[in-house]
């Protein structure tokens, strides 16, 4: 066996210590549905459903456990919010500082609608004296 195969064994040991030594629990589709809405706190841009880090594995285990105890989705999410703050939620709450991220697109859409309405509205006709002037000039020999 190659020298760094030893490293592999060492590494496996380290990985195992971070996680669980007994097999992980079975996870139902509901667990993933909840985990997907929670951020994995130690990862970069991964949800608790995707990440393979120890924390995410533990979060999935907790969700499965709480679902087994009959807790609802909202109760489970509230548990993690209490633990990590609202930052843990991938869906920003529609209040407080994150209210605006929801409101701005709606406001933008309204502004856009008004702008388009103005754009498509028939333009005011030119004043008659200007039209006469234009007509006169067009008829003039070059």
């Amino acid at each position, binding site marked *: *066996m*190659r020298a*760094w*195969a030893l*490293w*592999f064994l060492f*590494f*496996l*040991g*380290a*990985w*195992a210590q971070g*996680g669980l030594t007994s*097999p*992980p*629990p*079975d*996870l*139902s*589709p509901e*667990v*993933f*549905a909840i985990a*997907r*809405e929670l*951020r994995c706190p130690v*990862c*970069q*841009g*991964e*949800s608790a*459903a*995707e990440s*393979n*880090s120890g924390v995410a594995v533990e979060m999935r285990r907790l969700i499965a456990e709480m679902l087994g105890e009959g807790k609802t989705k909202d109760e489970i999410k509230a548990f993690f919010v209490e633990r990590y*703050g*609202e*930052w*843990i*939620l*991938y*869906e*920003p709450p529609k209040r407080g*500082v*994150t209210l*605006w*991220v*929801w409101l*701005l*697109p709606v406001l*933008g*859409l309204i502004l*856009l609608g008004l702008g*388009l309405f103005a*754009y*498509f509205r*028939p*333009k005011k006709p030119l004043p008659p004296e200007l039209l006469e002037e234009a007509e006169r000039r067009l008829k003039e020999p070059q």
Partner: protein
Amino acid sequence: MTPALLGNLGVSLALAFSLLGLALSLLAYHQGDGRFLRGAKALVAPAFLAALAAFLALEWALITHDFSVAYVARNHSVQDPLWVTLVTPWAALEGSILLWGLLQTLYTFLASRKPLDPWRASLVLAVLFGIQVFFFGVMATIASPFQTLPNPPADGVGPNPLLQNHWMMAVHPVLMYLGFVGLSVPFAYAVAAMVVRRYQTWVGETRWWTLIAWGFLTAGKVAGMWWSYEVLGWGGYWAWDPVENASFIPWLLATAFLHTAIVQETRGAFKAWNFAFVTLAFAATVLGTFLTRSGVIQSVHAFAEGPVGPAFLGAFLFFTALGLGLLSRVSREVRDTVVFRPLSREGALLLGAFFFAGWALVVVLGTFYPLLVEAFAGAKVSVGAPFFNQVSAPLGVGILFLMGVGPLLPWRKPRAEVFRNLYLLLGVLLLGTLGGLLRGYTLGASLAVGLFLYNTAAILLLVREGVLARVKAGLSPWGFLANRRRVGSLVVHFAVALMGLGIAFSQTYRLESEKTLYRGQAWEVGGVRMELLGVRALDEGRRFAVEASLRTDRFGEVRPRLHFYPQMNSPLPAPKVVYTPGNDYYFLLMDFDREKGEWASIRLIVTPLVFWMWVAGGLMALGTLYILWPVARREELKGVSPA
């Protein structure tokens, strides 16, 4: 001669040629002297060759394992297979900028060969040389790919294992850069048009460039989605990760530009929109690099961080200010004077472009919002996939709706027979959606079915219209295929509708389940029955693999794996994906018994219609190719410049 020496020489020469070219083309414009312009043109090819030399020097350093080059030491290992070594130039920041710079000199070279009046030619060259000065300036100062190490290591760590795990990584970044850089040519023409106050012709002249850039961006995005699906082991293709968003924004703006450009070409209207869209689309490519490389947003894609962020932010602000500043100077002259009806081709195109631009705005908002909150309120918030999905859904529905009806509407005024078509299409949409609801699909999925059928019907109506017109004129109906622009765009539109269907279903009906199986234990889930045969470890040289063997009733034996790389502290999953036209079955090995190999945790993800999204991606690329390819050649033969 060492690779580092050649590389530094190449970068310095490319910078010098670009600076000189910029000065000469500006002089050519100000003095109105053709000799300066000839001089600037003469520098285009040398700049490209210098950049090519620098790029080849990096490949040389990688192939010869020259670890005295810091980039090689950081991103290469003697154990890397040859193909990984060859694609390592774009595995990290400095090499990516070098590739970008090289492609920019190539596009400048191609653009400079098209005949153009001397005034605009000098301005177009000035803009393109200016962009080159920025890239090679960055490489010569803060992000040199050829920085050397005083004490080179004997071996490096190799590139990020995520990049070694799939051959798609050889393709996806190059396609993206080809698309990003392609947008610089229409931008340069737009700047020239605004300076010399000739507002009409540039869109037609750069149509091919815009389409080429759009085609590469689209192919690059789909390739990236597929890579994410095959490699990242989460069974998804789009995470609304900041880096994905960063490359989605230019795509959205380029799509908006592509559609309003048609109106300017045909009716001479929307000039101001086109200037604005092309500026923002090009500037967004630079903004994307700022997002990716400055480390301001933590993300899985942020492979490298460096001092480059501020430089790219500055460049973004400069290009935006240049384009929009010029636009505000000439805004009175580019104002539309024609009356538009919403129920016309141009009305639908403008509305569609607004949906795309609005979508870009929403993505920018969602991506930057956590940054703004952190900067001004000091709080940490997350804006993730649930937000983006919710705001994107109505925009996507609006776009899919306009896509069906838009091409059927005539320019200016709707004719009476158009209304018959409209009612027919609305009927199809309604029936399709109702049919979906009756089958028990969710509202979103039903709407996707309705919109897919509606778009297919609209395309069939258009084909029928075109063929009938030819038959009536006594021409062969097959001649319709010669209308490449129309046929190609219909192919792309059909692909978009198909993509929409795939996205709606794969997002709505995804089944994900995980179970620990002991050897010989069976599990039935998602319509598959599987049995664990065993777990084994394999030594593959640069990595270790642990493989679980599963016997399934429908797909024979499948072997999902975990890969252990020395430079990663957690294993990378190598899923086994079984593609079928209905559902995709995605087998993942999550964990295993390290002592005896008695058990393995298996995750199965069943996602419908993902297969069709890759088909749609291929169709989009083919449709774009169909529009571009032979017509460009034919027009060139006729002496008409396509650029």
